[in-house]
């Protein structure tokens, strides 16, 4: 809008500049402009963050910091575990719990859970950092586990990583989790490419990565592109609707998405790289000119329940997104939905409300869910290890990746006297597992008091235990970003170098 003198005032000017920068002028110039300023990070060799959202409260004393009964002065009332259920590699502070049961609370299905295989295999990449959070509200705590309690202007870890490394990636930040784990950060200064792309159905999501591939009997792609250009450059801009509302933020976003983003997504024919479904009678991909990803067979072998278990499908897609350099950070997580393989005759894939089923059956829930998460992590690590990232250095993708098991909080540390199964509430005190060759693994930052079940703090630079302190979420946030090489200057984060 002009003022009386027909001049743009400062605000109007800012607005028009903003629109143009976001692609509002529809031309190549705006596309280039939107990438300008991002180039500074293009030469930085990317590192990858995989967040596994452990919804419901993954208790660290039910996994890597499990307390053997024999070590506690209160073995019957604190949540300890039988010594023979706990495995620890020689000389390692890390532990794993292998358990089985004939029922999970009131669900009459036998279960068996294993953590030791994962620990044996990956012990040198596993770092546990204790933490005492600030909320036992699921949604709030989920978010804080990713933002360090909003310490960097409310940015999520994934947004920080995407902003650092993702400028040239087609979809730098993909999020398949739900609730607070899929919330966007608060920082409006974040580059828009770093905002996450939500994915609800991992198996079919790749179909949304090309405007025409997989649709039969269409005009040629060249003609479709020509039609887009006509629409974008001549038809739309001249409509009264567009001319009247061209100051709209939503239209500016749209312009960028349908030009810069769409071109970037389609250029790589990502559909063909990311589909992991089998070409079958029920889903005849080839009839639609589609073929599964060259990696599909390997992925399906690693995650064989991809068709019935959405979490495995997420893990499958996560690997393909990383391997094909589509994404710098991906978030996956089991839902709160119960998932049984075959009703009461089958297997419990996912108890109702995931880790939060601990309210009723703590041990079974924690055991089943930890086992489930670690199996997915293990599959991802195997696949990423097998993929070369940089021929000149011999690095694999795994060498540059980190898995962060995010969770809301821990669980109550006490139980009825010698109860084998019991319910637990939410407890702020807990710890996080970080798995990566980029951290100094086979270590615990802080520790656990065997007599109370409570974890305690650590020195942010040396990693030495500090029994009288507890660590807030921001220390985890900062430590992760430091390990990932994210430039945090100006963020006013605590200096946490103990992860590496």
């Amino acid at each position, binding site marked *: 809008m002009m003022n009386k003198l027909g001049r743009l005032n400062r605000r109007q000017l800012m607005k028009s500049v903003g629109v143009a920068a976001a692609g509002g002028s529809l031309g190549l110039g705006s596309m280039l402009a939107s990438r300008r300023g991002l180039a500074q990070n293009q030469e930085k060799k990317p590192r990858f963050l995989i967040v596994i959202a452990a919804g419901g409260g993954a208790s660290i004393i039910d996994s890597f910091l499990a307390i053997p009964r024999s070590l506690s002065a209160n073995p019957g009332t604190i949540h300890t575990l039988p010594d023979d259920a706990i495995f620890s590699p020689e000389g390692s502070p890390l532990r794993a719990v292998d358990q089985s049961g004939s029922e999970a609370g009131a669900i009459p299905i036998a279960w068996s859970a294993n953590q030791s295989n994962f620990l044996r295999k990956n012990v040198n990449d596993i770092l546990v950092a204790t933490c005492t959070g600030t909320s036992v509200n699921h949604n709030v705590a989920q978010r804080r586990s990713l933002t360090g309690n909003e310490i960097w202007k409310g940015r999520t870890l994934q947004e920080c990583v995407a902003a650092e490394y993702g400028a040239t990636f087609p979809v730098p930040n993909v999020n398949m989790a739900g609730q607070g784990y899929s919330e966007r950060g608060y920082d409006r200064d974040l580059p828009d490419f770093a905002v996450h792309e939500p994915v609800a159905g991992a198996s079919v999501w790749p179909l949304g990565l090309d405007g025409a591939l997989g649709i039969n009997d269409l005009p040629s792609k060249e003609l*479709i592109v020509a039609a887009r250009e006509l629409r974008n450059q001549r038809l739309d801009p001249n409509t*009264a609707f567009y001319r009247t509302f061209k100051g709209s933020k939503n239209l500016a976003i749209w312009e960028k998405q349908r030009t810069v983003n769409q071109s970037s997504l389609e250029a790589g024919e990502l559909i063909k790289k990311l589909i992991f479904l089998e070409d079958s009678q029920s889903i005849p991909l080839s009839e639609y000119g589609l073929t599964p990803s060259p990696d599909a067979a390997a992925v399906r072998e690693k995650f064989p329940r991809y068709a019935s278990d959405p979490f495995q499908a997420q893990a499958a897609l996560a690997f393909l997104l990383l391997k094909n350099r589509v994404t710098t950070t991906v978030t996956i997580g089991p839902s709160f939905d119960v998932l049984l393989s075959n009703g009461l005759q089958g297997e419990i894939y996912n108890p109702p409300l995931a880790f939060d089923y601990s309210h009723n059956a703590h041990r079974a829930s924690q055991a089943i869910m930890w086992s489930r998460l670690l199996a997915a992590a293990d599959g991802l690590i195997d696949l990423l290890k097998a993929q070369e990232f940089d021929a000149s250095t011999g690095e694999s993708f795994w060498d540059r990746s980190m898995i962060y098991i995010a969770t809301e909080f821990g669980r109550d540390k006490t139980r009825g006297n010698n109860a084998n199964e019991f319910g637990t509430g939410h407890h702020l005190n807990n710890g996080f597992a970080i798995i990566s060759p980029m951290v100094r693994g086979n270590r615990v930052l802080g520790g656990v008091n065997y007599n109370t079940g409570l974890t305690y703090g650590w020195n942010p630079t040396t990693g030495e235990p500090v029994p009288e302190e507890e660590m807030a979420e921001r220390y985890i946030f900062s430590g992760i970003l430091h390990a990932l090489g994210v430039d945090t200057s100006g963020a006013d984060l605590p200096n946490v170098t103990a992860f590496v």
Partner: protein
Amino acid sequence: MFRDQLYLHAALLTAALGMGCLAEPVGPVPGADGGTGLDGSLLGPDGSIVLPDGGVVENQIPESEKARVQFKRQRRLRADFAAALGFSADEVCKELDRFDCFVTVHNISLGGVDAYNLGIFEPLEETTKTTPIAMERIALTGCRNRVDLDLDTPESALIFKNLAMDASGGLADVNAASVDDAIDALYKRFALRRANPEEIAELRGFYETVTASGDTKAARSWAILACFMVSTSVESLFY
């Protein structure tokens, strides 16, 4: 090559305007009042603003200060595409002819929710990187289905009526009134207004691009893509 072709039909604009292709007015045309604007600005004869120093700000219509525009989102888009293309809601688009585009495959990126299973209770505030692609897939599928029906059963055609075709699958006459009518029908159905002469000329001109590409079903391809362009215009997808 195709980009060059795009600009060829600029020349057709004049022809279109001069031929009186439309029997009726084609929607509001910006006025050119001259005199004084509503805010006291001096206006030139073409509606441009004359600045005190004698400079001129080119003719433009006043923009919305609020500029509040919303993406229609999944439910409304499904209803509008179904109505515009003359299908029931579940006929508009299916990925791999199996999975409903709006409900199953592209639900979240189109601004839908998944309250019962995923706990996504509210739609995303903004469109995502994949939203335009999802919309194009839906438009291409729906338009293809509509065009094939209209061309295969002309007696019950809905949008592309009476399109005369030659033996090679091309339009017999791109300047035929039936072509203009089809374009006008697209705008009425997706943008709720008549097509203006410039738009008709642009879409008619696009046929040159199609034929230049060597497309062997030029009429069909043109019809699909004309439908595609209008149905995925911002005017169709936002309100």
